[in-house]
């Protein structure tokens, strides 16, 4: 048999039919649903009088609009409340499993799915959310879809698809201490650009990827959409299986053994061909910081804001000039000289327990710099509980960080957690687009350790200088 990639194998296993127009109908195993991109899909079903084919294949939770303070008193903002209420009414009407706002298991959909064992290797997973790519960390084919496709999956449990190209990313060498998956992701996007992966599924390989925890792999796959790829993949291995084992929705007993035997075959075969290969030597990689309004505009902590005069093309130069104006930065400014007013630690990129541990290790015994507002928002209620059991909340609070309830929060500010115009923020989220964290706000993407280092020093600082006492 011709050697196949991991993507090829998952694709083949989910092929329901090839239609006369050449498109393929792919079976969808798992569907995550949140309040923002689902109301019109439920409405569409209702209008057409269509049933929902497999309510149990859905896991639903509200995350974008939820308050991170005082949620026991309900949602004050009316439009936010209406959207959450619409989700609750829809899931009730269609019998869809739902984690309510005050449930400990509630959180960002991409944190909750893996935590509950809903996310499994070799499955196809969709959600009306571009960061569905996160679940690729488990060797699942996971991708974001629009609301019309959400409705399509609800009605048919399938999606018409065209096969993407295979892209292999190989990280050579090992990460030095103080660096993590976020630095890998940013360095990669800096290299290939935000459209570099368009039309591709990216598989991440190399010793540094094998060495990553599941949290790290999720961070990496989460950002694959920022490199233009709809999906990222990491083949499952012992680390994956150990993470899944015993989770509430994971298979048990004999089913577990059968699953494991199959999952072990889900790797790219020796000699499988990839359409595109990217190799990145990370041996000397330093912590990454974005300076512009696209994740591809990134440099390392020892670098400077670049000069648009050096841009490759006129279009690039115009785009960079616009970004520098928006970000209020001057070419040649050292990254470490950029002062900040806000720090956000959280999101589906870096809101997991390991991320909070990394940030707390830097915050411990230090104080948030005067003039900085620093927010820590756990990715889920379970992350929050775990962090509190480990005393991380005390460390953050003593250092002057705010400790919040779980949700998307200041990653995009659909709730009240928004930045004011002109405020500059070090954020562990995934997008630094204009206005992302609030109209006129300025976002720099970094790792959790780098965000904490920025919080306690007031400007970007190499986290490695604050490590080891």
């Amino acid at each position, binding site marked *: 048999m011709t050697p196949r990639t991991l993507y090829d194998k998952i694709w083949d296993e989910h092929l329901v039919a090839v239609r006369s*127009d050449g498109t393929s109908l792919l079976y969808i195993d798992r569907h995550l649903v949140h309040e*923002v991109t689902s109301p019109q899909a439920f409405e569409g079903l209702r209008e057409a009088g269509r049933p929902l084919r497999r309510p149990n294949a859905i896991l639903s939770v509200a995350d974008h609009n939820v308050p991170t303070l005082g949620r026991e008193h309900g949602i004050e903002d009316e439009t936010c409340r209406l959207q959450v209420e619409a989700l609750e009414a829809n899931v009730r009407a269609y019998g869809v499993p739902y984690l309510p706002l005050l449930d400990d298991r509630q959180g960002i959909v991409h944190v909750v799915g893996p935590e509950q064992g809903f996310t499994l290797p070799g499955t196809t997973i969709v959600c*009306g959310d571009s960061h569905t790519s996160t679940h690729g960390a488990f060797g699942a084919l996971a991708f974001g879809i629009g609301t019309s496709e959400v409705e*399509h999956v609800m009605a048919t449990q399938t999606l018409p698809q065209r096969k993407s190209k295979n892209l292999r990313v190989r990280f050579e060498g090992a990460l030095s201490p103080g660096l993590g998956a976020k630095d890998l992701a940013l360095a990669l996007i800096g290299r290939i650009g935000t459209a570099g992966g368009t039309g591709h599924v990216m598989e991440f390989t190399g010793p540094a990827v094998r060495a990553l925890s599941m949290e790290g792999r999720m961070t990496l796959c989460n950002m694959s959409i920022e490199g233009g790829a709809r999906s990222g993949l990491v083949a499952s291995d012992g680390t994956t299986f150990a993470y899944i084992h015993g989770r509430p929705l994971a298979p048990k007993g004999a089913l577990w053994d059968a699953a494991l035997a199959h999952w072990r075959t889900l790797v790219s075969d020796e000699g499988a061909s990839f359409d595109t290969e990217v190799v990145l030597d990370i041996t000397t990689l330093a912590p990454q910081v974005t300076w512009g309004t696209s994740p591809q505009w990134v440099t390392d902590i020892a670098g400077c804001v670049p000069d648009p005069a050096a841009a490759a093309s006129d279009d690039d130069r115009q785009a960079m000039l616009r970004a520098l104006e928006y970000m209020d930065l001057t070419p040649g400014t050292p990254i470490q000289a950029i002062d900040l007013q806000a720090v956000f630690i959280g999101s589906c990129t870096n809101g997991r327990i390991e991320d909070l541990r990394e940030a707390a290790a830097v915050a411990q015994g230090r104080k948030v710099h005067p003039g900085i507002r620093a927010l820590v928002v756990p990715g889920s209620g379970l992350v929050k509980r775990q962090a509190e059991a480990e005393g991380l909340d005390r460390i953050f609070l003593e250092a002057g960080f705010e400790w919040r309830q779980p949700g998307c929060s200041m990653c995009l500010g659909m709730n009240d957690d928004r930045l004011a115009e002109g405020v500059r923020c070090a954020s562990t989220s995934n997008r630094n687009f204009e206005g992302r964290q609030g109209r006129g706000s300025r976002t720099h993407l970094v790792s959790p350790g780098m965000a904490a280092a920025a919080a306690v020093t007031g400007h970007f600082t190499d986290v490695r200088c604050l490590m080891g006492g």
Partner: protein
Amino acid sequence: MEPFTILTGIAAPLLRVNIDTDLIIPKQFLKTLVRSGLGQYLFQEVRYDAEGRERPEFILNQAPYRTASILLAGANFGCGSSREHAPWALKDFGIRAILAPSFADIFYTNCFANGLLPVQLPMEAVETLAAVKGPLTVDLPAQQVRGGGLTFAFVIEPARKAVLLEGLDEIKRTEANLSDIAAYEIRRRQEAPWLEIRTF
């Protein structure tokens, strides 16, 4: 869905690269429960100032572009989030075709679900068309964009073309495969029984 065949209209040049979905429709308008009415918020943060006044320098605030039905843009249009609110807002404003060198994958797919035609053309062609005075014609059956005496051919996958030309409902099409889906589900239950979903 409304079919797309031949469109003649005003084309507004917005020749930036990487126009992301946050820019097309900012998050505060994602709280809606319906698909309609988003056109007034299209490009909100660059179209209006903080007080809600129009910014005269923004292209869609200028005549004749207020009535544009075609948008000319730079590469990687629609990158970022999966929000279908982006094509909903474009369509509600009156845009039916976007001409750009490349599109982000999810946005591209979302266009077809809404009767919008994303046309891939090289940047030089987009720039040339931006300089044309008067309306452009986007001819889907002929796969051409015409204007100012110029003609540019474009490529589109036949299946995608059919969806737009006939205004096909994708769910209805897939329902023709319901027996395949049922057969697949039975087979999968035997081959991969661990995929059966447990409940909490």
